[in-house]
């Protein structure tokens, strides 16, 4: 019975160590979280919920893409200022992410309303980017630390026409999201079990032969 247990530990340890190593390497989760939302009718603006930009990682890389002839605006501002700017503007709010790491998507909330005004005219923005057809902006998480009440991002065109159809965000995954949570425990447990099993097999083998 001891010999069976020793073999069990040996094989189980080997399996765990191999599985853990695979999870840390070829089966490791993606190192980036890329989430995109495309809508045919996003409203006048697409806006993130407070806290979404700081979802994970050191920064959030944003990209808004409209049609080739659209002047696209991307801005980051204090959440309360953007709420005041939006007023009753029609909009799509990106409230969170769902799905899994391989195929994530945004949770969205659509609010009907009217047009706004050209966002370029306002002075509420902490950072902005503009471009013909698309705009990109990287918001460092550290920049949000000093802004009381949190910040949000807003994508729009001229404030009266439809917002860019596609808004994407990319975060570099860190901590528990950056690696499979079972990988390191599996390797550690596997190594321990492997050693115990090997010792057991050796000891039970000597006794049997003597």
């Amino acid at each position, binding site marked *: 019975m001891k010999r069976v247990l020793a073999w069990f530990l040996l*094989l189980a340890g080997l399996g*765990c160590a191999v599985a853990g190593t695979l999870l840390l390497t070829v089966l490791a989760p993606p190192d980036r979280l890329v989430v995109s939302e495309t809508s045919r009718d996003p409203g006048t603006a697409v806006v993130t*919920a407070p806290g979404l930009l700081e979802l994970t990682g050191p920064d959030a890389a944003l990209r808004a893409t409209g049609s080739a002839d659209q002047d696209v605006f991307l801005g980051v501002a204090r959440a309360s200022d953007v709420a005041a700017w939006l007023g009753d503007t029609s909009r799509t709010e990106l409230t969170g992410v769902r799905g899994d790491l391989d195929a*994530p998507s945004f949770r969205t909330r659509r609010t009907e309303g009217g047009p706004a005004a050209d966002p370029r005219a306002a002075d509420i923005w902490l950072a902005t980017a503009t471009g013909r057809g698309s705009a990109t902006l990287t918001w460092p998480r550290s920049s949000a630390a000093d802004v009381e009440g949190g910040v949000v991002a807003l994508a729009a065109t001229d404030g009266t026409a439809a917002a860019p159809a596609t808004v994407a965000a990319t975060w570099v995954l860190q901590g528990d999201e950056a690696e499979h949570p079972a990988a390191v425990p599996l390797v550690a447990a596997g190594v321990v079990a492997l050693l115990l099993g090997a010792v057991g097999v050796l000891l039970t083998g000597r006794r049997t032969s003597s």
Partner: protein
Amino acid sequence: MTRSPSAPRTTALRGAAALAATALLAGCASLPAVTTPAAPRRTPVVVEPAQAERIVAAASQSLLTADTAGDPSLLPARTQGPERDLRAAAFAVRAAGAQPAGTGAADELGPLTSMLPRQEGWPRFFLTVTDPGADEKPSLVVLRSESAREPYRIWGTPSLLPGVSLPATDAPAAGVDVVAADEDTNLVAAPQAVAERYADVLTKGGASAFAPQFADDAYRGEVAASAAAQTAALTASGGTLTQTHALEPGTVLAVRTRDGGALVVAALRWESTSTGPAGGRPGTLDPVLAALAGRAQATTATVVREEVVAFAVPPTDGGPVRLLAAESGPVSVTAA
């Protein structure tokens, strides 16, 4: 039923596989969740310090463009209130070939420091002290935004009076508290009352009942000297001069200073009417006034000037109110 010798190994293999599968399935990496930021403990500042610098730079650039072109249609983009009126009048004077007195402020506003109020909602304002302008004095630039969708526009650029020092306020990042126009907590007088009383002092001079509440200042001296000279000239020829200074409603802005007092900014309207002797010949108007009046000679002329003034209002029992900065200029002239 007999078991084969390999049964223990098979069982061990199955057990190991089951353990690994369980670990894999139980530990699938999950998506991070959104954490809603905590509500601010205090009312936030209207703009962050770096944001204020960008806004001042943008306003300065717009002002420079408008001044270079001398085009009043470019002014509304980044100016409003007294500053827009004063600049538009200066452009008109310049277009007529006269030399405007100028606002005394710099077109290129190099910010030295800012006072950023902690304020919810709109309209909002903040103050910036800038490098010396054409008059070689630093300016106290007042920027206002009427709504979240509108930019900050330069509302006034009064120049600091010689020898004055601004009362200490908290650092830009810390923000300053806003004092309501009618709030007199720990102040010798509410901001609106201070502005109204100073207007009375400018109108009546030393005869004003409020004169002792204000320290002497260079601007008040200039206004009194100008009025005295005009009165003397007109009286000698049989004419008259009447003038009033009055607070422009809704223009009082104030922030709390570190000593418990307040820094107050307000706009005044200075209206003066000069009338020549009855039946006398028309007099020649000053070129600046003539440019705004659209005529060179007149028997009566009503000149409207706008003034932007800034005060240091001390806490209760802290002494007289001090005028810190002032600007003024004619914005319209009606002559006949």
